[in-house]
């Protein structure tokens, strides 16, 4: 067989392999984009719910002023921050703080029996739990997509394409609050 034809075939095979690596990398990047959009949708639900919770909390929770103010401030900051590949670390940190403060607010509700039995608050708390479940699910989807992308960014030969296309490793969406990561001591809750 003509050596030129063999060379052409070999080059063709290499081109196909490289193209498929490139396509997979783009697919993985798009998957992360899709998961980011999912997270945004779920976070918006959380942001929409906060004013309702705060309106009720304001009426009853006199001693939690600073907590309510923190939640309001963090929500405003979160609303003004766009979600994209470049600010994910800041976004994750900010949403982590917001989640932590909201969690504290929900725990504080336990200290206000009148508020705890308020029907609107009960509904808001149920919705909050559901929204947080959806956020957790979206976070898992994002982390799974990021894991695949990060592997592709680090492993040869897709790493070559990734660096030339400006695709970098992305951070995982993890709990940022150290308190939430720490093991729970039941005594803290049982003997209050």
């Amino acid at each position, binding site marked *: 067989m003509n050596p030129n034809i063999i060379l052409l075939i070999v080059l063709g095979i290499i081109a196909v392999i490289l193209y498929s690596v490139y396509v997979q990398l783009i697919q993985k990047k798009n998957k992360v984009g*899709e*998961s980011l959009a*999912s997270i945004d949708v*779920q976070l918006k639900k959380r942001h929409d719910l906060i004013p309702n919770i705060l309106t009720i909390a304001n009426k009853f929770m006199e001693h939690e002023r600073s907590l309510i103010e923190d939640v309001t401030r963090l929500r405003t900051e979160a609303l003004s921050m766009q979600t994209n590949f470049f600010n994910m670390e800041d976004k994750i940190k900010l949403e982590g703080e917001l989640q932590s403060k909201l969690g504290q607010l929900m725990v504080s509700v336990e200290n206000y029996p009148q508020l705890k039995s308020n029907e609107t608050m009960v509904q808001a708390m*149920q919705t909050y*739990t*559901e929204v947080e*479940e*959806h956020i*957790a*699910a*979206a976070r*898992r*989807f994002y*982390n*799974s997509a990021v894991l695949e992308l990060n592997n592709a960014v680090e492993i040869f030969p897709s790493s070559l394409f990734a660096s030339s296309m400006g695709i970098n490793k992305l951070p995982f969406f993890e709990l940022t609050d150290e308190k939430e990561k720490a093991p729970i001591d039941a005594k803290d809750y049982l003997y209050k």
Partner: protein
Amino acid sequence: MLATTQEANEYRQKFHAYYSEKIVNDLASFENLRKTELKKWVGVIIFAAFTIALLIWLIAYFPSQNGNSSGKIIGAIAVGFWFWAHNISKSFENKVKKSIMHSFLSFFGDFSWHPSMSISKNEIDKSKLIGNFNSIEPDDYFQGTYKGLKIYFSDCVLSNGSKYSNNYKRIFDGLFIQLEMNKSFKAHTILLENSHINLLTNFSLPHNFPDMEKVSLEDPEFNKMFHIFAQDQVEARYVLTTAFIERFKHLKDTFKANHIRASFLDNSVLIVMDSNREWFKLGDLRKPVDDAGEFQEFFEEFVAVLSLIELLNLTSKTGM
């Protein structure tokens, strides 16, 4: 109900007392009928054995040119006798069940039994868990509410082709369990056991699910056990929490099922287990009607299905 072994034992004892008090008396009247039906059944078996032996003798002594058709005739006659005997025992079983099922189910709460109903073909098709089939042979169908959640379960056989023809093919034999979940979701998610694909269901992946995407969860063991397809990646993870998948992994062993699959759609889960055996059997002609062992087995099967709600923690909003 059965959170601990001690609780389970207490529940069994309660059932035993209930059985002695409410069910045994109703059963007593069936003993004479059982003996009569058993005689009929034995008669059919003896008559079948005699007829078939006679036919074989005739064929051996007067061989025809077409040996194949003689074999087919004997086969058809044997099948006919089998159905005759089967009908006698099935009809007795249904009589017993009709008579005592109401009091039996009262023990568990708000439940009803429908002997000739099953989960609908539409529901099965919608779940996308079973390949093509054109016939459902229902056996038992139960519906009720347990721990505030609706539950439907059905023991049935799914098949293709006419039962009496050569192209008859059994596609599925086992249990369908539909459970309401305390979660709100619309998108469709399905779990198919890896070892099961292409064996019974005529599945060829992934073009069976054009509107679904493959989902890869964070549990490698679970990913190895099941193919997961979903219309929505987030909702798939919303129903398949890490705690839920951990519990789901043990279902197959708990139920001694050959294969297990599940479909999550419209706030409920449909769990399908191939077991190749008849569930919820009562009224065996060959055993005295007050034989407690049969009831015990029925009780255990019924409780196992209800325990799914606790096992999978479906009453919880978070699934944790």
